[in-house]
C-alpha cells in the first residue's frame, strides 16, 4: 500500500487491514515469479496480527449478517453448535475434551440466548457518501478528518447484533476467536 507521502488523508484503512495481515505472512505486492510453496520464517508479529488485527475483529464480532449469528440463532442444541463451529473452522469433529470444554462454556444462558429483537435495519453505507476524499482534495484539513474517521470505523467493524444476549454472545465470540488463533487453523486453511 503506497502512502509514500505519509499523509493521513491518503490512507485506505480497510484495504490496509487486509494487507497488514497478508504481509505479515509473507505476501508481497509484486510477485516476480510464480511460487508453489512459500518458505516464510516465523515471527511473533504473525500471530500478533491474527490475535489483534482488524481483520480478526471483522471475523469475530457478531454483527447481524455474520454467519455465526445466524447459526447461533437457528441451532437447536449446544452440542450441534459446537460441532458446526469445529467443522466450519477446523474441518474436523471436536475431540471429546474439546467438546466438553466448549459445551461447558456455551451452555449457561444457551436456552435464553435469543433476545427476540428483530434484526435492526441495516444502515446502508451510501454508494457515494456526500463527502469523500480524492486526490484533488486530499490536501484540505477536512480530508484528514474524514479519513481518520474512516480508519476508526474500519477498526470497529460492523455494529454488533442485538438479537443475542450480550453475555452469551461474547462467550461465543471468544470461542470463535480462540479457534481462529489456533496454530492448526493457520496451517490448515
Amino acid at each position, binding site marked *: *500500500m*503506497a*502512502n*509514500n*507521502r*505519509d*499523509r*493521513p488523508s491518503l*490512507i485506505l484503512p480497510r484495504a*490496509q487491514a487486509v*494487507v*497488514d495481515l497478508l*504481509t*505479515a*505472512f*509473507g505476501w*508481497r*505486492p*509484486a510477485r*516476480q515469479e510464480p511460487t508453489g510453496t512459500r518458505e*516464510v*520464517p*516465523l*515471527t*511473533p*508479529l*504473525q*500471530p*500478533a*496480527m491474527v*490475535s*489483534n*488485527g482488524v481483520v480478526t*475483529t471483522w471475523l469475530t*464480532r457478531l454483527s447481524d449478517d455474520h454467519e455465526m449469528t445466524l447459526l447461533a440463532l437457528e441451532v437447536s442444541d449446544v452440542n450441534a453448535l459446537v460441532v458446526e463451529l469445529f467443522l466450519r473452522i477446523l474441518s*474436523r469433529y471436536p*475431540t471429546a*475434551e*474439546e467438546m466438553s*470444554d466448549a459445551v461447558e*462454556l456455551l451452555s449457561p444462558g444457551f436456552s435464553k440466548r435469543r433476545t427476540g429483537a428483530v434484526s435492526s435495519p441495516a444502515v446502508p453505507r451510501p454508494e457515494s457518501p456526500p463527502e469523500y476524499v480524492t486526490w484533488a482534495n486530499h*490536501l*484540505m*484539513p477536512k480530508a*484528514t478528518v474524514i479519513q481518520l474517521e474512516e480508519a476508526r470505523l474500519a*477498526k*470497529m467493524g460492523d455494529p454488533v447484533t442485538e438479537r443475542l444476549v450480550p453475555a452469551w454472545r*461474547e*462467550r461465543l465470540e*471468544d*470461542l470463535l*476467536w*480462540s*479457534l481462529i*488463533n*489456533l*496454530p*492448526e487453523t*493457520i*496451517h490448515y486453511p
Partner: protein
Amino acid sequence: MDVNTQTRRDFLLRSGMGLGAVVGGANALGQLPVPLGRARHCIMIWLGGGMAHIDTFDPKRLGDPKTRLAGSAYPSIATNVPDVRLSEHLPGCAKLMDRITAVRTLHHNVIDEHALAVLRVHTGRPTSGTIQYPSIGSIVAHELGALYRGVPAYVVVGYPNVARDPGFLGPSSGYLYVTDTDSGPNGLTRPMYVSEGRQQRREKLLSNLRIAGLEAARMKSYGEMLERSLRLAGPDFMGVFQLDTEPADLRQAYGGEFGQRCLLARRLLERGVRFVEVAHNLNFTNGTGWDTHFEGQEKQHLLIRELDQALSTLIVDLEQRGSLDDTLIVVGTEFGRPAQFDARGGRGHYGRAFSLVLAGGGLRHRGAYGVTDELGMKIVDSPVSVPDFHATILACLGIHPQKELYAGDRPVPVTDGGRPISALFG
C-alpha cells in the same frame, strides 16, 4: 530436490572449481574502507515531501518568494561550528552542530515522482523487475537483530509503506508500526471492546484448545511464536508506549506530536529496538507537508521549527542519558528543492544536490560535510551518493559496508557500491 533447483553454486562446486575463487561470500569482503563504528541503534527521522535544503541545513544568500528572487527564504544564523551556518529557524540545532553533520552533497536523479524517490532513498537502488530491495531499516534489523530477545528489531512510527518493507529479506526483517503516539502498535493492541477479563478468558480458551486438540509437531514453532506474541502484547513491552510516565517538562521540551514520536523512539531504543523510523506527522500543520510547492511554502517555517525543537531535544536527551554515542540519528527526505521559486512562491523538486543529516552515533561530526555552489544547486566538493550515505549508516552501526545479502541464492551487495564517508570515522 530435483535438478531444476540445483544452483549455479552447486554445479561449480561439483565441477571442482575453487571455493574461494568463485563462491565469494566472506572472501569478497576486502579490507574495511573505514574503521567500523560502534553505535548500537539508529533513529531515522523521515521528512515526507522533500525538505528544501536551502531553507534549512544549507542556507545561501537571501532570496524573495514574492519577487521570485532565487535564494533562501529565511536569513541564516551562525552555529557553534565555525563557518557552518543554518537557517534561522533551526536555533536549537545551531547550538549542537558539533554533534551533527549536515551532509550537503547528496544527489540522485529521481525527482519526478515522490514514491520513486522515497523508495530510492530508503533502498539505495532503482527498482528492479526481478527482486524487491529491502529498506535500510530492514537491512539493519536483519544484520543485527534486536538488542534484547523478544523485542521487535524494527519499528516504524508512521504509516506502512512499500519503501520501508523488507523486500527479499522476508517478513522476519519487517517492522511493527504504530500510527501515532496515542494509539498502540498495530497488531499488539487489543481492540477496545475486549476488556482485560475477556482477554484472559480468550487466552485460557486458546491454551485449553491447544492442549486438548490435535497440534502436530510442525505447528510447534508457530505455537512458540504465538506465546511470544502474547508476551509482546503484555505490559512489559507495551509499557514503552505509555508516554505519560515521562516527566512533563521533558514532554513539553520535545513539543507536539512529532516531538512525542521522537520521545517514543528513544524509549523504544532503550527497550531494545534496533532501528526506529519516525515519520514527521503531516496532519494539520502544513497541508502539503515538506512538499512546499506553491502556497505550501508559507507555513514551512512551522515545520522547520517543529523539526528543530524535536531534534535538538532528542540529541540533548540522549546525551544526558549517556547514549548519544550509541545512537545514530539520521534525518532523511526524498530530495531537495531548487533555489528558484515557482509562480506562487513555492519550490519544486531538486535532486542534483540536497542535504541529509547525521547526528550522534560516535561519528566525528563537523557540522557540515560537502560543499555546494552559491545557490545550493551544484556540488562543488565531495559528492555523496545515496549508496554512500547508506554505507556510512551501516559502517557506523558496525556492519561491513561491502558484505553481501542473499535473495534466495542470489548475492546482493548490501549497498550499490557505496563507500562510507571516511572523514566521519576514526
